[in-house]
């Protein structure tokens, strides 16, 4: 028999890096991965220190630390998560975290990384690796990290690396006997002020306010920053739609429901009156909580009454947030425009804290116990939509919060078995009480939504008719099928005929909308030409005059070449103005601009500004485009963006001319950024007269069609912009208090998620 060779598989080091980089898309993700690791390790403090002087970042916590075996078995084993092989640590804590990608966050941030870590049982351990080796060395198994012990305490280890006195004050505030510290040197990206502010802002939304008591995050971004400034505090207002705070005391459950979901956009009085809302409702919409009390002993079945008295007092905060919203729903039900939540967020779920210690695995992402209250099965049993009959229920992914219990709650047995079921009476009551609090939230929200829905139907009866007709047609078809008729198919009922008519009308409307889009672009070309009509008509006569002079000079053989040159130059200017006007009007209609595709918005804006520069210079108007650092992409029609800008610039030009704006105020500013909720925000302003007269009081009016403040204005410019924004699920925001004209246009991808 032939000898059998055994050849091992190889993984190139580079592959590991690529996989890692794919899993961590940007700097913010890298940072949050590391923060999650700290939280996972039961830290109550996590400090990120950006050392701008030495260009390095330190991240340290006071979690449980890692032993040498942990490092060898898990930290150095790419792709393995502790959770898969060892769900319970020695102390019974259950680790979470998936795919073991946390350490790739380090690669994203810097070229070199040193880790020091201290557990309760072992000495301080130091771990060093040069990530660059992963680029040069072939096999990943040939890449080594250095591991060494020393006798220092963890605090001494920290003090060796961090010298900033402000940062070190953390050690006085929290217990740093054990923990893990990462020192990342030679940063891969420049940590600009802008980037830092953005990250900081995103971090304020990472940790739910309920958890802030138990997990403090500090972000030092300069050598002068002190602890108070570094502490990331949550801006609660933007992070929930509904909140219920409850207290269980002596068998009485007190709930406070806060409505934070609605923005009536100037129609508050109308909605309150026509929507049949009470005086109390007005207060609730203005931030007052709806307070109710419930005697639990009277609510539960007999055999649980005793348990309800035994479980002791406890409290909690629960937050509800929609995962996404459609613009139509938003208009109908007056939703605020909020940023959407990230799914599978380690800080999500309903967590349980006993005496400020997290009790796992309640609310842990990617575990059976994430939905320990069984909210999803509850939802499946009653899946009604909120505006229909039948009670609406929340889904687990929409909820997050914290429940606080203490040692006094002896009756609550909080360790879950493998299957996550607890079968004591006390735990049953405990769950029921929390569900009751959630029910208060659900009932209030449904009540409000139903009223808003009725109001909408009152305002838009036609839509309701259309829906009804479609329903009737569907039922009729179903009935026919059931009766198994061999009726003549051409013999349609009135309902069927109506449906066909509606479908035909819809098709006609779609075609009109397409036409409309093209006409809009043509209209803008016309609008600009209208503003420029005087200049454009003069191009012709200017050139004629110049030619006349040239003829005279040349025919006389007048050796005044300087003068001839002068005339030729001024002719060139005329021609260049002419071609600028051409660029700004006719070029907009080029066919490749009429197809929808993903485009770099920065480039488009820059091109538009360039094409206007000559025309604006002639009138001494300056335009400043503040471009964002990173590119912004939007799936759109190029001409829609061009039309928006052309209308705005044309308006500014007219305003400057009509109101004889002095030269130092003939300035236009333009910027474009990507906001947190994924929308593209274009801000445009000028220092001209701004909105005047009635439009100053009521800016929205100027967005209506055929409204103009100019003598020969068309009244279409701003209306066109509003129509475009609406098509892109966006909005137009004016600010009449600005010293000049200010407009912000928000645009989103044309597709929208369904809830």
């Amino acid at each position: 028999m032939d000898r059998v060779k055994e050849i091992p598989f190889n993984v190139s080091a580079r592959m590991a890096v690529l996989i890692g980089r794919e899993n961590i898309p940007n700097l913010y993700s890298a940072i949050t991965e590391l923060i999650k690791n700290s939280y996972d390790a039961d830290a109550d403090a996590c400090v990120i220190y950006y050392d701008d002087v030495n260009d390095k970042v330190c991240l340290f916590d006071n979690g449980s630390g890692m032993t040498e075996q942990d490092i060898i078995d898990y930290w150095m084993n790419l792709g393995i998560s502790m959770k898969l092989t060892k769900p319970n640590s020695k102390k019974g804590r259950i680790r979470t975290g998936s795919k073991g990608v946390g350490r790739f966050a380090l690669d994203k941030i810097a070229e070199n990384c040193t880790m020091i870590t201290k557990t309760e049982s072992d000495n301080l351990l130091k771990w060093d690796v040069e990530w660059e080796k992963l680029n040069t060395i072939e096999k990943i198994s040939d890449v080594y990290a250095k591991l060494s012990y020393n006798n220092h305490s963890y605090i001494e280890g920290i003090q060796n690396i961090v010298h900033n006195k402000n940062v070190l004050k953390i050690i006085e505030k929290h217990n740093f006997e054990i923990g893990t510290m990462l020192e990342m040197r030679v940063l891969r990206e420049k940590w600009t002020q802008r980037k830092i502010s953005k990250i900081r802002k995103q971090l304020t939304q990472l940790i739910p306010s309920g958890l802030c008591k138990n997990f403090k995050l500090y972000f030092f971004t300069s050598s002068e920053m002190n602890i108070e400034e570094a502490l990331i505090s949550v801006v609660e207002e933007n992070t929930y739609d509904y909140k219920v705070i409850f207290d269980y005391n002596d068998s009485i459950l007190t709930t406070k429901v806060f409505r934070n979901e609605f923005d009536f956009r100037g129609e508050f009085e109308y909605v309150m009156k026509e929507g049949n809302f009470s005086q109390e409702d007005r207060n609730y919409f203005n931030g007052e909580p709806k307070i109710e009390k419930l005697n639990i002993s009277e609510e539960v079945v007999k055999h649980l009454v005793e348990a309800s008295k035994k479980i002791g007092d406890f409290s909690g905060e629960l937050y509800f947030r929609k995962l996404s919203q459609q613009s139509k729903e938003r208009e109908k039900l007056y939703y605020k425009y909020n940023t959407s939540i990230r799914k599978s967020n380690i800080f999500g779920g309903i967590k349980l804290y006993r005496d400020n210690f997290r009790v796992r695995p309640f609310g842990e992402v990617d575990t059976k116990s994430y939905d320990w209250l069984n909210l999803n099965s509850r939802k499946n049993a009653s899946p009604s939509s909120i505006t229909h009959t039948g009670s609406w229920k929340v889904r687990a992914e929409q909820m997050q919060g914290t429940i606080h219990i203490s040692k006094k709650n002896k009756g609550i047995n909080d360790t879950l078995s493998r299957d996550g079921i607890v079968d004591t009476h006390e735990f049953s009551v405990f769950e029921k009480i929390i569900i009751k609090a959630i029910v208060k939230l659900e009932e209030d929200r449904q009540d409000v939504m139903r009223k808003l829905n009725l109001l909408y139907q009152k305002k838009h009866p036609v839509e309701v008719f259309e829906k009804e007709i479609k329903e009737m047609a569907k039922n009729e078809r179903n009935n026919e099928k059931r009766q198994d008729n061999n009726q003549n198919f051409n013999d349609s009922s009135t309902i069927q005929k109506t449906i066909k008519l509606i479908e035909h009308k819809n098709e006609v409307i779609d075609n009109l909308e397409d036409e409309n889009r093209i006409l809009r672009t043509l209209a803008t070309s016309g609008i600009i030409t209208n503003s420029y009509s005087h200049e454009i008509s003069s191009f012709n006569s200017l050139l004629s005059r110049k030619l006349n002079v040239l003829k005279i000079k040349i025919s006389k053989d007048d050796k005044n070449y300087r003068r001839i040159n002068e005339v030729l130059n001024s002719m060139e200017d005329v021609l260049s103005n002419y071609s600028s006007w051409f660029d700004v009007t006719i070029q907009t209609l080029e066919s490749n601009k009429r197809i929808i595709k993903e485009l770099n918005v920065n480039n488009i804006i820059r091109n538009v500004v360039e094409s206007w520069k000559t025309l604006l210079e002639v009138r001494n108007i300056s335009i400043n485009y503040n471009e964002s650092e990173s590119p912004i992409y939007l799936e759109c029609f190029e001409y829609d963006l061009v039309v928006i800008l052309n209308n705005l610039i044309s308006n500014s030009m007219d305003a400057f001319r009509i109101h004889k704006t002095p030269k130092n105020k003939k300035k236009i500013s333009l910027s474009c950024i990507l906001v947190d909720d994924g929308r593209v925000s274009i801000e445009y302003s000028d220092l001209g007269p701004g909105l005047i007269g009635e439009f100053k009081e009521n800016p929205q009016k100027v967005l209506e069609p055929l409204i103009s403040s100019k003598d020969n204005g068309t009244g279409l410019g701003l209306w066109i912009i509003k129509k475009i924004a609406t098509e892109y699920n966006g909005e137009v925001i004016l600010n009449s208090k600005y010293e000049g004209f200010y407009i912000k246009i928000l645009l989103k991808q044309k597709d929208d998620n369904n809830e």
Partner: protein
Amino acid sequence: MSNYVIGIIDDDVDGTKDYKDIYEDKGFETHIFDIDEDSIYHDVGNWIIENKIELIMVDYLLSNASAKFNGDKILNYVKQNFYQLPVIILTSRVKEAEKSNYIEHWFIQSKDELDKKENNYMVSEIKHAIDVFRFKKEKWMEEYKKLFEKKEKNNPDETERLKELYRYLRTYGEVDDISTEYLNSDLSQKISEFNDIMKKLLK
């Protein structure tokens, strides 16, 4: 026949250079008035007299970048202080000029139209207008000389007319500066002396 002298008042420096070339080529002595924010009507008057300008073309929109007044007001000033001197508005903003209450529409010429047609027909109009102006001045001079010779015997109306003609001709430097007393007739002289005596007596 001496050279026709025309004047142009316009704040478009580039344009005035072009027009100077064009009209000089046609044989006109062309003067450009340097208008700026400090200019006053009196400056225009001095410029007309110094250069012996016989026809003026004024742009309408001057207050845009420079002067305190627009071309229509200048036209008005010239008409009041320079009797019969031909003056027109030459502008590219005809519609706006027509809104002015200071000038009738037939004084407004479109620059754009003229530029396109190489200003040719304008040339003959200008020449004719200046011819008319010169003819009028000749007629005044004839009448003035006649009345001046018999000034002692002029009736009051004729004395008035003599003084009037004197003023016109004086504006254009056609006659020397003399005291208007000198133009009075004996009869009117005697009447004024009588008036003086009566005034003294009544006091």
